[in-house]
């Protein structure tokens, strides 16, 4: 397996003493399973920390590793190796679920880069309470206004809808709202992909300032997206009822 990680620390194989990359799952020389090192999901897959990734290659690697790490393979091995196999199999599944999902992967990378969406919000609240000022909203005020307005309209439609009359105009408005939200959701996903390449390029160039700029844009976009996702969910609920 090709190891593309940026780390180059070495460890010795517990069995044959050969030198291996710290993130190696198996000894290059004797093939023995290596202890569970604290690896992030990218390192675990032997991938560089990048947002754009090859889904097919990731999937292949997942199936390859799940076979090789499976606890059944170690049924007759030492208790220590059985334990490692269990730990690694569980980590493998978490890593796979996170990396294959575009949003989960983005959030995970932001977390690895020490950005936590919820904590940002909490910190801003604490700062506001300490200084006695209104909290600086993480979401731009015009987006909040827009989301609030859309929610108001949606509620009006929902109430009219619930009161039973099958108003074709209302139905049309709902369909239009749904299309609008869906289009915004798709647009957000496209913007996210553009930000992935922006971030990856910054990471390739080892440019922390450019990485941070891209990260902040991703945070803003993910925040916006969670509002739109709720609107999509709500309008579908009204139309479906």
């Amino acid at each position, binding site marked *: 397996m090709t190891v593309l990680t940026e780390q180059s620390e070495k460890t010795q194989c517990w069995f044959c003493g050969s030198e291996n990359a710290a993130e190696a799952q198996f000894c290059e020389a004797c093939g023995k399973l290596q202890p569970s090192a604290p690896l992030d999901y990218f390192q675990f897959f032997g991938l560089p920390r990048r947002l754009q990734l090859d889904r097919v290659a990731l999937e292949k690697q997942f199936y390859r590793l799940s076979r090789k790490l499976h606890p059944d393979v170690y049924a007759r091995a030492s208790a220590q190796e059985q334990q490692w196999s269990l730990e690694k199999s569980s980590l493998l599944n978490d890593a796979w679920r996170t990396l294959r999902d575009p949003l989960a992967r983005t959030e995970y990378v932001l977390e690895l880069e020490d950005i936590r*969406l*919820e904590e940002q*919000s*909490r910190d801003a*609240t604490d700062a*506001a*309470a300490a200084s*006695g*000022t*209104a*909290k600086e*909203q*993480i*979401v731009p*005020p015009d*987006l*909040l*206004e827009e*989301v*609030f307005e859309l*929610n*108001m309209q949606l*509620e009006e439609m929902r109430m009219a809808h619930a009161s039973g009359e099958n108003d074709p105009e209302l139905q049309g408005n709902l369909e239009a709202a749904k299309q609008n939200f869906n289009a915004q959701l798709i647009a957000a996903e496209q913007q996210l992909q553009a930000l992935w390449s922006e971030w990856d390029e910054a990471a390739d160039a080892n440019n922390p300032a450019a990485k941070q700029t891209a990260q902040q844009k991703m945070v803003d976009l*993910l*925040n916006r997206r*969670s*509002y739109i*996702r*709720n609107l999509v969910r709500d309008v579908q609920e009204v139309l479906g009822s």
Partner: protein
Amino acid sequence: MAYSEKVIEHYNNPRNVGQMDKSSTEVGTGLVGAPECGDVMRLQIKVNPLTRVIEDAKFKTFGCGSAIASSSLATEWVKGKTVDEALEIKNTDIVKELSLPPVKIHCSVLAEDAIRAAIGDWKKKNVVGGEQVSASAAVAAN
């Protein structure tokens, strides 16, 4: 996860739902959001310019039961308080009153943010040359 009885009570009978005239100088409006869950909350206060007492409060929240209950409770609590007293309300008080579980603490944070934002908006409207209009109005009234 089950909601506490108080949350359910506020959710079923939310207090002070509605809106007030945003453009009135006596009204402060706070619009805040919790991006993590996509909630959005608007809280408005109507302040007596002479006494600085919050005489009325309204809210409208799009979000989960805990967010609705937190804002409903916030409007109840700010009513009758002066703006300075209302600034003392902490999200932890709301958490305690509603027995919110850890995953819903951000709803109470949102309510605290909303109170602060509404008061901030009111203050902004009522400051002339760095001095509170209400203070000079109080002097004039004497």
